[in-house]
């Protein structure tokens, strides 16, 4: 698969699991897109651990450090897996992985060079020393426990937006 095909496959599979997708070239478009996505009254949690996270313009009066009181989490994820359309977050670097779980809306930024083709590519790198937590997130939270009726948004986010950022 070429790089472009891998990115396309990733975004197709992300879209297939009921998440919103966008692909932007350069960081210029990111702020605008996030401003549109978070809307007027949300409380935003952003870990500000990566350069990309730190570069995002957010409405400072509505930013919180406490993910349990946030309605939106904006963060850069560690990797993407094209095969399944999964986003990967890890605890490495002091990230609170659950920060992307608790708020109702998860906006995930992913650098396109962090997208790998298959699950094998991703899982063969850890050997005996993975970080404390590796979480794959594929689409929003869901259940079909009542009469098998699919319901989106149970304990995790009901809305997942994925922005692939090409440097």
């Amino acid at each position: 698969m070429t790089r472009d095909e891998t990115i396309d496959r990733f975004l197709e599979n992300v879209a297939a699991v009921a998440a919103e997708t966008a692909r932007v070239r350069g960081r210029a478009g990111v702020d605008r897109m996030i401003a549109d996505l978070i809307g007027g009254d949300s409380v935003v949690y952003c870990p500000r651990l990566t350069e990309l996270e730190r570069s995002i313009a957010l409405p400072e009066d509505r930013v919180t450090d406490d993910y349990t009181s946030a309605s939106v989490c904006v963060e850069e994820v560690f990797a993407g897996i094209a095969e399944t359309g999964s986003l990967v977050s890890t605890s490495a670097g002091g990230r609170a992985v659950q920060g992307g779980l608790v708020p109702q809306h998860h906006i995930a930024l992913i650098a396109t060079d962090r997208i790998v083709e298959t699950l094998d590519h991703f899982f063969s790198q850890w050997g005996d020393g993975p970080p404390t937590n590796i979480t794959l997130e594929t689409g929003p939270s869901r259940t079909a426990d009542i009469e098998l009726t699919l319901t989106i948004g149970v304990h995790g986010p009901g809305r997942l937006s994925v922005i692939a950022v090409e440097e």
Partner: protein
Amino acid sequence: MTPTVAPIDFRSNAAAAVQDSLLRAALRNATDTFAAKRAQAAACVPLEELREAASGIRSEVLGNLSSYLDRFIERASRAGAQVHRAADSAAARETIFSILKQHRVDKVVKAKSMVSEEIHLNDYLIANGIRVVETDLGEYIIQLASEQPSHIIVPAIHKDRRQVGRLFAEKLSCEYSEDPAQLTKVAQQTLRREFLSAAAGISGANFAVAESGSVVLFTNEGNGRMCTTLPRLHIVVLSIEKIIPSLADLPTFIRLLPRSATGQAITSYLSVITGPRKLGDRTGAEELHIVFVDNGRSSIVAGEYRDMLKCIRCGACLNACPVYRTVGGHVYGATYPGPMGIILSVLLEGMAKAHPLLDATTLCGACGEVCPVKVPLPDLLRRLRERRVEEGFTPAIERAGIAAFGRAASLGGLFTLGRSMARVLWPLMEKLIDPQTLGRLPKPAERSFQRRVR
């Protein structure tokens, strides 16, 4: 033979279940949907190759289980987890309770775990004054209703939206609704408070990874992630055979487990947890305990039924089984229902108690065909039926008299059904089962049966 053990009364249970038209409709809907989704999802991957690979990995682990366990324990401990081994259910319950007591925990949030059902953990903790909150929606529903799970993947499969609506209105004092989305929201709001205030989370694990000492959890709702990351204390309870060698083996099981269970290519969430929170971490419980339950598995793994322990609890054999599809999970009167449940129940709970379940199979072979790790289910069922006779347990039919046999046999080809099974269920099954399933029922002749007739 221990005459003091009362055998499970599968026949009366089943007879009652087939009278319940609501249950039958719900079961039909669920098992049909899952079976169809599984078939669809399976068509997107090189299924046979994957099954072969998964079966090989599981066999390799079971062939060397104690060294894999030792490796896991060493690696998990190195990562800071505290690993415990419990020989039986009582030891497992006590271990878990003493950890909770040490931490003065009065409430735990729980993510779905079949082995915790196997060891009857909830009742024990509740009797000892600890509040246990099940957080998987299906488990939450049946906990509110004080019932048992009826399916290993969708535990409340036997309840329809009106029943859930009435249950929530009564127990949670909310307005009656029969909209699954609204009911889900009510549960979500109630449970969010529990998550944020619980000092301990208990979860199962789908796999334990020997090389890295990690536990792996597949969930869709996000409750598993909440239980394992929000409380200070996390206790994982799992049975000893859940080991895979390394994280590099995980993709094979990711490709098979959700596809076989719900027809998804992957669950919404998959967590790989390696030890508790470490210096500099902001994720993970401060203390992680891993409790391995044996409950006779060490001896099963050394014997002729070892292959049963390859099972990864996907539920596909339940959905494929014409008996399960007709009667549902409760009638088995055991933790694990369906074809895999019959075998596990006999192996874990003993022939004296579980032998009537051996009537709950038509030996049609459908379970073996769908199993993602190639557990030779029909073969194991056949061998256990032979063993039942050798051990002197009488199949129900012989107690009921020969008339029933005549009735089953006269239905042409039907004598290949388990005989008491045929007597109780056939007239109903004929009406209930779709022609496709019906068509395959008599296919493989039941050797042990014919041998005995001659």
